């Protein structure tokens, strides 16, 4: 016999899995530390590429006066100065990334918790049906 309560709960779960769950369930496959670290590595790569693009654009923009720009400058000092800017840039993005992904993980935890709560309810209903 059809259990209306079970159908209602399972529909709710299916709707979650195709909607909000699609975003949050993959996140909950990881521990918080692993997820945040993984995302921060990706952020490091993308921010390095971004810095590269910005640096390249700067060089192209200054190409006409590059000789004047470099004249009389210590190349090692210049490289260190660029390196410092790169480290600051990366640090800013790592800190931003840490906050964004930690918050996202917390949201995913709260959201998936509700899903598992419904799942437990369905399991209990199933067990009750089996005893009958």
């Amino acid at each position, binding site marked *: 016999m059809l259990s209306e309560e079970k159908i209602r709960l399972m529909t709710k779960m299916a709707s979650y899995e195709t909607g909000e769950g699609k975003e949050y369930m993959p996140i909950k496959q990881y521990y918080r530390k692993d997820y945040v670290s993984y995302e921060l590595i990706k952020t490091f790569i993308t921010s390095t590429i971004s810095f590269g693009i910005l640096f390249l654009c700067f060089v192209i*923009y200054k190409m006409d006066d590059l000789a004047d720009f470099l004249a009389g400058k210590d190349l090692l000092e210049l490289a260190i100065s660029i390196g410092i800017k790169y480290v600051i840039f990366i640090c800013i993005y790592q800190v931003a990334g840490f906050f964004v992904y930690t918050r996202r993980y917390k949201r995913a935890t709260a959201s998936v918790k509700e899903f598992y709560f419904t799942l437990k309810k369905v399991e209990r209903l199933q067990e009750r049906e089996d005893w009958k």
Partner: protein
Amino acid sequence: MTGLLEAREKLRIFYGKYELYVTAGIKFILGILVFSLINGQTGYMERLRSPAVVLLLSLVCAFLPVNAMVVMACGMILLHLFALSMEACAIGLCLFLLLLFLYGKFAPKNGYTTILTSVLCFFRVPQVMPVAAGMLKEPSSYFSVLCGAVVYFYIRGVQENLANFTATEETEELAKFTAALKIFTENKEMYLVLAAFFIASMVVYLIRRQSMNYAWRIALFVGNMVELVIFLVGYILLDMTDKILWVLIGTLLSIVISLVLEFFFYNLDYSRVERVQFEDDEYYYFVKAVPKVFVARKDKRVKQITPRNRVSAGRRELARELDIDEDLLE
């Protein structure tokens, strides 16, 4: 007012019932608008200018997430720029990659905001976007408005400097790159617009978060006024007074649309405010509860009292039924 509230409820119910079709329809129309605008503004590649391409892309976008439209629009812009000049295309690609890596990666759900900002910029009335974003979204989303504006200024910059990109000498390659980069570095109007948008969004956000009465309405008016003042002062200082008329039109439109948004998303009844106080072990709570204005949908039911198949009887039959004289029934 009651009529408007009823209409709002009907609209909500309609959207809930046909959400799939309504969303697809909106995306399709937006797609046509976006791709036609790109073709109109940057139509350097003849093959892409066909209406069939616009229709096909819009149809595909109607059934995909809105970010797919963003990607396709970027691809289309790059193809057009490639047909014009490889250098403009390369800088365009760098721009899109930077926007994706530095912002899009962290807040991927702002496709509509970015696209609508660019579209409204082309119609010269983008003032509503920062105010709307301030009302409906969190501060992390405000950068998407800025992204839309930056893309618009790049496309417009290429258009205004066409001569720089169409030179055929090989020695001009570096000059083309520099010209493309100067669109960003020497465009003071762009910085003015970005600053105005960001400040307006933040002002709206900070005011609407207050617990005072009519917070959203105050926020939208103050936000629009702040934006208007920044634009007016900025354009006067930049000696671009011809744009002031469009700023005024845009601000008026922004106020109207913001009021509509407020009506749909934040319609509260301040005449029935309730204030309660209570405590637990750790805190003392001062709560202000404002009820939402809500009108129940009129459920019209027609109750048939008389029998459905009414048999018409003549005077003679009726008199015979009642056992009286037929003349008495005149």
